């Protein structure tokens, strides 16, 4: 018999099959992901998402006998008191308790199929929804970023990394120092022997010399055999070391208008936008803080729950949020220790008199501090058709436009649907690419 250790064989043989299964039930998964976007915290991509799939979708039907109708006989174990001829009442609903094996061969068909998405599967669906380019998807999905850098040589490693030049250099040095005969030397001696052997008649001296040469030849030969051409001690491998990319801390400010004019749909769009920005940032920085500031006519820092859930009534003074952000930056996030990002979502309503203040705070105070400031103006689905053109843009939009033209780290975009969100990041991403 034969014992084979297969434990080191690649795992995840079922990965392909699982992927296919996931593809098949994509619709249901999408639902679950969309639901989770609403419920999850921004920074939370690692918690598991449970997906419910109705039985019919993934049924594998076979011809089976029905559990009802007709007459049937069954043998059961464990009779205690029955005698032949006894009758038992049928339970309500037809089939008896002891019959459960008749229903389905797998026993699980009765319930919906539930399973948990992995982090990657979750992100895949999320990204697909946002229509991210593939390159971006892989960039965001990597968990830790390492850069592989050369780090000298090592005496062990994988054959792929074998450094031939170094190895041969060591081999040569060893061969010289151990005086391993070269093939040429051996050939010379062999030549002499052949020459002597070839002579028709040999003198006694020749015979003696021949014997000596043979001994020398044998010695050389033995030496060659004993001293390897390449010995394991000669091997040198290129060594690589993963070095983590330089990481720093970043803080992300989420500013949102929560006055009554922001509908649920608009907030949902805004949340996706914030979510994506957070993903980008958490890829680039080891530590990302999120600060939520919401505003009506006055601004307040709140927790995430309040930020997305509750609605306030009141007017809209955008500058109040900007002022609040400025205050928090000065208080908690010194610019030399933190990279500051800001994302603002609004429907564009603002008090006309506030415009001046807004642009001033942005231009003078915030933009010099920020790595990047993104403004998205969310437009209600129903109004999207009417207001697509720039001419219909809001007051705030026109004010910001002036700032955007001067400052490269300010981006603005009107968002009508989910697929509009990513282009906002394009500029940011192009920039980080250059930096990295």
């Amino acid at each position, binding site marked *: *018999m034969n014992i084979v250790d297969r434990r080191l064989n690649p795992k995840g043989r079922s990965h392909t099959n699982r992927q296919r299964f996931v*593809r098949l039930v994509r619709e249901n998964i999408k639902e679950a992901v969309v639901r989770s976007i609403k419920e999850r915290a921004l920074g939370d991509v690692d918690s598991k998402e449970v997906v419910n799939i109705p039985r019919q979708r993934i049924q594998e039907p076979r011809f089976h*006998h029905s559990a009802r109708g007709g007459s049937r006989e069954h043998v059961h174990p*464990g009779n205690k008191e029955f005698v032949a001829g006894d009758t038992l009442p049928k339970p309500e609903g037809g089939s008896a308790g002891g019959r459960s094996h008749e229903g389905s061969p797998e026993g699980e068909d009765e319930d919906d199929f539930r399973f948990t998405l992995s982090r990657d599967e979750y992100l895949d669906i999320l990204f697909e929804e946002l229509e991210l380019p593939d390159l971006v998807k892989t960039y965001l999905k990597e968990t830790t970023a390492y850069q592989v850098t050369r780090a000298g040589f090592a005496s062990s490693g994988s054959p792929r990394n074998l450094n031939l030049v170094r190895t041969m250099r060591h081999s040569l040095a060893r061969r010289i120092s151990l005086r391993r005969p070269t093939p040429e030397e051996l050939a010379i001696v062999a030549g002499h022997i052949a020459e002597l052997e070839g002579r028709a008649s040999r003198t006694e001296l020749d015979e003696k010399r021949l014997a000596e040469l043979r001994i020398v030849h044998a010695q050389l030969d033995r030496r060659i055999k004993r001293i390897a051409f390449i010995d394991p001690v000669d091997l040198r491998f290129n060594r690589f070391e993963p070095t983590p990319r330089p990481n720093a801390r970043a803080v992300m400010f989420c500013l949102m208008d929560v006055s009554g004019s922001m509908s649920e749909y608009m907030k949902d769009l805004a949340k996706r936008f914030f979510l994506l920005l957070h993903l980008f940032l958490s890829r680039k920085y080891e530590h990302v803080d999120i600060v939520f500031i919401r505003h009506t006519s006055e601004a307040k820092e709140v927790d995430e729950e309040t930020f997305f859930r509750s609605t306030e009534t009141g007017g809209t003074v955008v500058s109040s949020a900007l002022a609040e952000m400025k205050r928090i930056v000065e208080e908690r996030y010194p610019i030399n220790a933190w990279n500051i990002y800001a994302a603002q979502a609004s429907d564009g309503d603002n008090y006309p008199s506030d415009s001046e203040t807004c642009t001033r705070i942005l231009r003078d105070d915030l933009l010099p501090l920020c790595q990047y400031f993104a403004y998205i103006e969310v437009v209600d689905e129903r109004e999207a058709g009417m207001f697509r053109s720039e001419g219909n843009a809001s007051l705030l939009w026109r004010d910001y436009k002036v700032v955007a033209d001067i400052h490269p780290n300010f981006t603005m975009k009107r968002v009508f649907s989910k697929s509009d969100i990513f282009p906002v990041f394009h500029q940011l991403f192009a920039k980080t690419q250059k930096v990295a």
Partner: protein
Amino acid sequence: MPERSAIAGSRPSGALLFETGEWNFDTLKRTFDAIQEIAIGELGLDPYPVQVEMISSEQMLDAYSSIGMPVFYHHWSFGKRFTRDEKMYRKGYTGLAYEIVINSDPCICYVMEENTMTMQALVMAHAAFGHNHFFKNNYLFKEWTDAEGILDYLNFAKAYVARCEEQHGIAAVERILDAAHALMDHAVNRYGRRPRLSLANEKKRAEERLEHQRKTYNDLWRTLPKSKRESAAKHENDHARRKLGLPEENLLYFIEKFSPSLKDWERELVRIVRNIAQYFYPQKQTKMMNEGCATYVHYRIMNRLYDLGKIGEGSMLEFLASQANVVFQPEFDDRRYSGINPYALGFEMMRDIERIVLSPTDEDRAYIPEIAGTGDVMGTLKEVWANFRDDACIAQYLSPTLIRKMRLFKLTDRTEAPHYLVDAIHDERGYDRVRRALARQYDPGVRDPNVQVTDVDLRGTRRLVLSHNLHNDVPLSEEEARAVLAYVADLWGYEVELLGIAGDDSTRYRYEASPRSS
């Protein structure tokens, strides 16, 4: 069989094969050799050569999902199974099987690294010798499976499916595989192939027919008027149907050969599914015996190892605890009851046959005279393992003693009756009826719905007609039957219908399906 001696002191104090639960390849090898000595030397088993493969629990999960085979083509249904098994396992609802054994030559036996050395020994005795012997010797496996070729075939199948996916797209391949999987239970010729007509036989038959005509010639027949056209068409149609070999119970075979719409590569996919279904066909019919055989073999071997002083008392206790779990049979009113445990019934039957062979009672002599008191336990058992399948084995060897021990009773459920009827119990009048009923319960002809191709309209609509012959008036489960029928229509490419034919030839139900666009 020699009962395990209760007094430890009476055992020879030989060197233990292993002392702790930890295993290594050395102890594995040593233990395997000791087991082999008993299995082949003492029990006289005749297995294939064995290859033991050590895998991790994750690999075991992987193996589960593709029906335990080491290589298999890709399909979403395996992903579904994997997803489910993984969840059940991670949450601790189920443990993993201790082993998977593959009916191949050499016999591949997967064992898991998490198991203790005692369990490894048990598993090797169970799978590498018990199942292995059964695979090699049972007539069904000999007739239906090709142990030497299976791994090559699976490799071929995997590569072929992958190539089709590359050429035609995953969706197109899945369309065929989904449909073919739905018919997997109807992919074998249960009753063997019809003998193929040979030219010589055909000639002989034609001559006989001529001779018959000559002998029975009567000029009067010529004077009868006949409706020429109709009979000619009918004759032609009958002839064509005969050529198709209707009725045909092997639905996948029929579709593979005669579907008017399948492309060549699609036909080959259907064929792959059909061949794999055929390979697994014997396992379904011999589940009880196969497990009984393996459980009996490992029970004997473990006890023998203990008697020889090769395993310690701790190991023996661990083994006995596991054995008790494996052959546990909950009673019908137990919450855990879900039918008869094949391990329990199988093991009990093998032990019972052993008892009948060695020390039969008068009752045994009356009921099962052919083996009672013959004295050759292994000889008898090997005969049984080689020549029976579950239903036949029960019909032949379920003794009154065992019926009493398990307290089996037969329950009848008739639609029209308001009650279940206890038909027979473990008494003099009941033995035969319980035995027959239990055997029928394992009879694939009764257990699986009898669905056949009965008609094809070859000249017009190409409509395919399947018939389900109701047994005891039990219908098909409608929702599923319709879903399967839709798949049949996809494969056939034209309309299909399914008729439910009752015992009195009346049609109980009729489902129809048209092909969905591909």
